[in-house]
C-alpha cells in the first residue's frame, strides 16, 4: 500500500482528519451552547467560567492540532514533506499539546471531582485513566523534538537540492 502521494494512506488520512475537524467543530459549539444555556452552569459561576475557559482553550488547541495535521497531510499527498511549513506545523502541534496538557493539569488541581484520582481503572465500560495530561505532555515533548529533527532534514534537503 502506498503510504504517501496521490491515492495513498495519506489521502485517506486527509479525509478522516477533515471529517474529524468538521465534526469536532460541530460538537465543540454544541457542547458550548448546552453548557452556557444550562442553569447548572450559572449556579457554579466562578468555577464554571474557569472550566468553560479551559474547555474553549483546550478545544481550540485540539482544533488547531487537527488543522496543522491536515496541512502536513497535504504536503504528504504532494510527495514533498520536507518543507519549512511542516517544521512550523510540528512546532505548533507540540505547543498545542502543552496547552491541552496544562488545561488538564489545572483542571485536575482545582476540580474537587478529581479527589479520587485513578491512574488506571478497569470496569464493565472498559479501561479508564486519569493521566491524559501525561499523554499530551509526552506527545508534545516528542513532537517538539521531531520538529527539530525535521528542521535539520529540511536543511539537508535544501543543501542537497542546491548541490549541482
Amino acid at each position, binding site marked *: 500500500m502506498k503510504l504517501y502521494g496521490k491515492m495513498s494512506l495519506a489521502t485517506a488520512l486527509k479525509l478522516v482528519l477533515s471529517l474529524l475537524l468538521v465534526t469536532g467543530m460541530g460538537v465543540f459549539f454544541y457542547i458550548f451552547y448546552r453548557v452556557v444555556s444550562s442553569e447548572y452552569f450559572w449556579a457554579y459561576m466562578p468555577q464554571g467560567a474557569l472550566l468553560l475557559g479551559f474547555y474553549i482553550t483546550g478545544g481550540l488547541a485540539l482544533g488547531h492540532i487537527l488543522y496543522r495535521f491536515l496541512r502536513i497531510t497535504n504536503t504528504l499527498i504532494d510527495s514533498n514533506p520536507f518543507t519549512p511549513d511542516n517544521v512550523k506545523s510540528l512546532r505548533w502541534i507540540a505547543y498545542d499539546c502543552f496547552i491541552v496538557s496544562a488545561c488538564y493539569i489545572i483542571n485536575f488541581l482545582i476540580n474537587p471531582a478529581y479527589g479520587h484520582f485513578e491512574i488506571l481503572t478497569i470496569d464493565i465500560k472498559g479501561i479508564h485513566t486519569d493521566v491524559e495530561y501525561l499523554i499530551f505532555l509526552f506527545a508534545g515533548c516528542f513532537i517538539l523534538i521531531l520538529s527539530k529533527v525535521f528542521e535539520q532534514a529540511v536543511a539537508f534537503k*535544501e*543543501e542537497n537540492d*542546491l*548541490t*549541482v
Partner: protein
Amino acid sequence: MAIIINLDVMMARRKISLGDLALKVGITNANLSILKTGKAKAIRLETLNAICEALNCQPGDILEYAPEDPSSAP
C-alpha cells in the same frame, strides 16, 4: 559567500548556450542555472570535471575566491 562562479563568463567566451552546456555536461538546465546564478551551495567534482571538459578550461576559470573582508586575503 566568498566563492564566485564565473560560469557565465566562460560560457560567453566559448559562445555556448545554457542548454547546450547542460546537454554536454549531463545535468538539467535548472541545475546549471542554479550554478550559473551562484545559488548553488555545493558542486560535485564530477560536475566540475564535466564542465571543464565541455568548456575546455581549468576549475580556476570557473571558480574564484574573493574574500568579503579584503584584509583576510592571502
